[in-house]
């Protein structure tokens, strides 16, 4: 047997993804509380603020506020936190540990995202509960919400990871991530008919718009299968394109 053949075969992608996720969950066991607080405080606060300022609103507007803030909750973890973490990993050469192992770069990014998303779910539950209580709207909360949230997270995390990989340092990545998150917030909450046509057109280039529409359809009901497919398909396509970019960026060498 040659030395070369004595190397272990690379692990199957599923095994390495599971191990990477376990590593991330283990890593976050000490500071998970702050992630739960951060991902729930801001969206819940915005729901409360909008209700306090506007008073009772139509069902459509209430659903828009709730779903917009659900997407914001995902965006906080998938864009702002992920961009900062990925930029830190790049700047400190922490990525080198993973880049010298037989695992794919996007699998590393996805493992961080899924770990963060786990801590965003309590925040989303708070947004749903507070929104329903304040606006008194019926919400169709079913199992389909979970894959929709996951798909939203993956699509938005492509943006977060790309920001992190392209930024010089984690402070800059955090700044850009927060700005992008603000865009997500505005495009998600303000109904299309209240924004200029140009802004509405641009909003269809951003995955968060499809995420809001998909969550609106799931929570409010009444959307056609074609609309569901369009939104889920757009999120899936964004994920593929963005993760292709992440793959290129994470394997970029000096």
């Amino acid at each position: 047997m040659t030395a070369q053949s004595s190397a272990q075969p690379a692990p199957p992608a599923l095994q390495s993804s599971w191990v990477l996720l376990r590593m991330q969950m283990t890593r976050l066991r000490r500071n998970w509380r702050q992630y739960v607080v951060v991902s729930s405080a801001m969206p819940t606060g915005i729901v409360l603020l909008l209700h306090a300022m506007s008073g009772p609103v139509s069902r459509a507007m209430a659903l828009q506020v709730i779903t917009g803030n659900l997407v914001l909750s995902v965006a906080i973890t998938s864009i702002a936190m992920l961009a900062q973490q990925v930029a830190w990993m790049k700047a400190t050469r922490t990525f080198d540990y993973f880049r010298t192992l037989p695992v794919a770069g996007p699998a590393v990014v996805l493992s961080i995202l899924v770990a963060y998303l786990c801590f965003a779910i309590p925040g989303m539950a708070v947004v749903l509960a507070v929104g329903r209580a304040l606006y008194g709207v019926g919400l169709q909360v079913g199992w389909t919400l979970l894959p929709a949230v996951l798909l939203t997270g993956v699509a938005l995390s492509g943006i977060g990871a790309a920001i992190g990989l392209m930024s010089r340092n984690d402070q800059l990545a955090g700044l850009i991530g927060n700005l992008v998150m603000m865009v997500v917030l505005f495009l998600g909450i303000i109904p299309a008919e209240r924004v200029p046509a140009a802004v509405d057109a641009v909003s269809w280039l951003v995955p968060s718009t499809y995420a809001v529409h998909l969550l609106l359809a799931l929570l409010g009901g009444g959307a056609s299968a074609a609309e569901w497919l369009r939104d889920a398909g757009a999120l899936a396509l964004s994920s593929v394109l963005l993760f292709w970019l992440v793959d290129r960026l994470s394997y970029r060498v000096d």
Partner: protein
Amino acid sequence: MVAAYSVHRLTKRYPGGVTASDNLSFDVQQGEIFGILGPNGAGKSTLVRQMVGLTRPSSGGIRLFGKQIRPHDALVRRSVSFLAQSPLALLDLTVKEAVAYTGMLRGLSPQQAERSAQALLDELGIGDRARRVIGRMSGGEHRLAGLAAALAADPPVLILDEPTNELDPVIRSRVWNLLERRRRAGSTIVLVTHNVLEAERVVDRVAIMARGRIAAIGTPEALKRQLRLQVSLELTGATAAVLGVARELGDVRDAASGKVRVRVGGNLGAALQRLADPAVFSGLESLRVLHPSLEDVYLSIHGQPEEAGDDRAV
């Protein structure tokens, strides 16, 4: 047998004109411990980063087991384990988790990874610290945990950047013993280190780098012969008589703190006879014969520090 690594005319120029690797060519044979020595800025880290595919060469090439490698080459990632200078990715994990997870990411089953992690930690003498979080441990323990993770799954090639930094002498000795055992078992080890004295204990061959180039390469013995390094005598309790004889014998290097060091070259027998003169011998407190070491080779290339202290008595 094909070389583990074959580096051919490797050059790396960074934007701004810094040449970190300047036309480097050398082989690392399978089953040897190959040392890369050099001061800070000599180009050691850039060289090993190219060898593991983290940095793209400007020109030239690197073959691993005869196959040309590219950045992030699957063969490299499967066959080569790299211990970088800091295991930041592992800081929030316990020592055992870090080793076991790394083993799993290198293809071990969870059961194999758990078993081999504990065995590895026991071998390194840190089995009792398996459940401690790496980030809460001392710098030396960080290093040891990172080394244990690099050794997980027993990859055929190990590239270790300063593996014994911050380790105490007992643990360092344990690490060198472990690396010797790995070499005997067939592993190829590329060792980047500043610790020249200890490197001499384990390396089969060594490349000494200076300003991106290889200033010398070969076995430590061959390098000593090549550079015609001389035997020295260290005389303690130097009286005026001893000092006088030392000056007659050869090049006196150090006359500080009651010690005289004198290079005697091939005239050791004659020098000892001269010192046996009762008038001289009565003033001597101790006499040590200092054979040239790898550190002497290193210093002859990179320059002697002023008032060098050297306690390599053989």
